[in-house]
Structure formats: C-alpha cells, structure tokens
C-alpha cells in the first residue's frame, strides 16, 4: 500500500497524458463507413466497459480473499472495485445508447448481449453497495459472499443473453479492426485501465483511512 501511494503521482501523470492525447487520436481515426462519425464513441465506450469488467473481476477475487482469509485489505479492495464498477458502468450505459440511437435507430435492445450484461452487472454492484451501506454489522462479510456471485454472474448472463439474436457488433470486431482503428482503441483501453488503477489506489486509501478512524474512535471511548 505504501508503494502504491508513492507511485500514485507518476501514475496520475501517465494517465493524464493518455487522456489528453486520446481525443487527437480519436479525431484522426478514420470514419466508419456505415455508422459515420458517431461510431467514434466506440473509442471510449469499449475502454469504459473494459474497466467495468476489470472492476467486477477485482471485486470478486477480493471478495473470495476476504471471505476465506478475513484480511481487511481485501475488504477495502472489494468495496473500492465495486464502486468503480458502478461509476464506469454509468459511462458505458450512457455512451452505449447514445451510439445505439444513431447506429441502430433505437436507444436500447434487450437481446443485445453486452448492453444487457452491463446493465445487470451495474445493478448487481449497485446492490452490493446498498448492502454494505444498509446491511448493518457484518455487512462486509455478506457483501463478500454477494460479490463472489456478482463476479460469477458476468459470464453466465453473457451466455444466456447471447443465445438470443444480437445487433451489437460481434466480439470479432476488436480482432478484425484495421490498424488505424485498433491504435486509438488500445490507447483508450490503456488510458482507462491506468485511470482505474489510480482510482483504486485512492479509493482503497480512503477505505483504509475510514477503518483506522473507526478503530481510533473505539480507542477514544476506552
């Protein structure tokens, strides 16, 4: 944790560089032939989605660690990751429909795998945060159990929705991207992953501080 806090300013600097250069790369990228310029939302919609799924995985793993080892740091990481899932999830769920409106003519499509999975995930991790806030004592352990299910849910929902027809560009899009488009995309993904890491460090520090504060209050009572 000490090391992470020391690396933070450098990390923030690198992240800032990535985010500042990003719009230039996006502007320079070729315009997609059928969807037009609105397809460029892709360059930050997909990276935000990447951060969301990353957060869900981190929360799930931290939950497992907390449930079995009861290490406080694992708990701090879990709740921080869940909060980031909800935050980045909002970005995905706003930018997605804005893109969809132009590209497909509708704001939402339930049978689209990624939209529905993200929505379910967002709801799940929002529920996680509600549990932690209103569950009372012991809610960190209950939340850990729930977080594990939340992480496992991602591939399961994906599976079930993908049995339906889908309008969303298939996963092969990323692999078959021409290099002029792949460049900005991976730049964007890197930017968001860096941001995710930086935010995690800050958020975990906040959580550790809160725990220390509670312990200090208890000690004050004695």
């Amino acid at each position, binding site marked *: 944790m000490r090391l992470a806090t020391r690396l933070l300013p450098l990390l923030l600097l690198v992240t800032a560089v990535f985010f500042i250069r990003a719009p230039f790369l996006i502007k320079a990228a070729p315009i997609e032939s059928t969807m037009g310029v609105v397809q460029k939302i892709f360059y930050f919609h997909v990276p935000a989605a990447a951060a969301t799924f990353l957060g869900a995985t981190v929360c799930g793993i931290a939950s497992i660690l907390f449930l079995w080892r009861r290490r406080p740091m694992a708990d701090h990481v879990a709740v921080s990751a869940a909060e980031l899932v909800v*935050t980045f999830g909002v970005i995905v769920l706003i*930018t997605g429909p804005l893109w969809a409106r132009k590209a497909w003519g509708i704001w939402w499509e339930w049978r689209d795998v990624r939209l529905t999975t993200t929505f379910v995930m967002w709801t799940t991790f929002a529920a996680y945060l509600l549990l932690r806030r209103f569950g009372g004592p012991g809610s960190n352990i209950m939340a850990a159990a729930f977080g594990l299910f939340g992480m496992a849910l991602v591939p399961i929902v994906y599976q079930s929705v993908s049995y339906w027809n889908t309008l969303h560009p298939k996963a092969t899009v990323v692999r078959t991207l021409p290099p002029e488009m792949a460049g900005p995309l991976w730049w964007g993904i890197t930017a968001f992953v860096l941001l995710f890491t930086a*935010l995690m460090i800050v958020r975990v520090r906040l959580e550790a501080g809160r725990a220390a504060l509670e312990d200090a209050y208890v000690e004050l009572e004695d």
Partner: protein
Amino acid sequence: MSNSKTELQAQAQEGFVPATSITTESLPATPLLYSAYGAVWVILILYVFVLARRLTRVERDLRDVSARIAKR
C-alpha cells in the same frame, strides 16, 4: 470499390470498415458524439471530486482523533 449500403451494413456486423466516401445522414451524429464524450468527462470529474472530498475529510478526522488520544 463502392459497396451498397446493405452490404456494408452486413460487413459492419462482422468488423468495422473505414469509409472511402462519406454520405450525409438523417440524424445529426456530431451532437451525440460530443455529448457522449462530455458525459464521460463529467462523470469522471464528479467522481474524482467526491472522492477527494471524502479523503480529505477522513484524513482530517483521523488527525483530530489521534491528537485527542495523544492528549489523554
């Protein structure tokens, strides 16, 4: 080199295709793109702002309580 729109659309399901010529669309795309971009920034900045505020408050409280403990 000029594919029909439907062929291109089918192709776009499989992979994005860079345009060779731009045709004008019915719904203005640029406002959507810029609002999406703006939304990203607004949300991120809001979150960072709230996070920073919570952090300074907790660290201040921690300093206060530690001082009170030391004074006893």
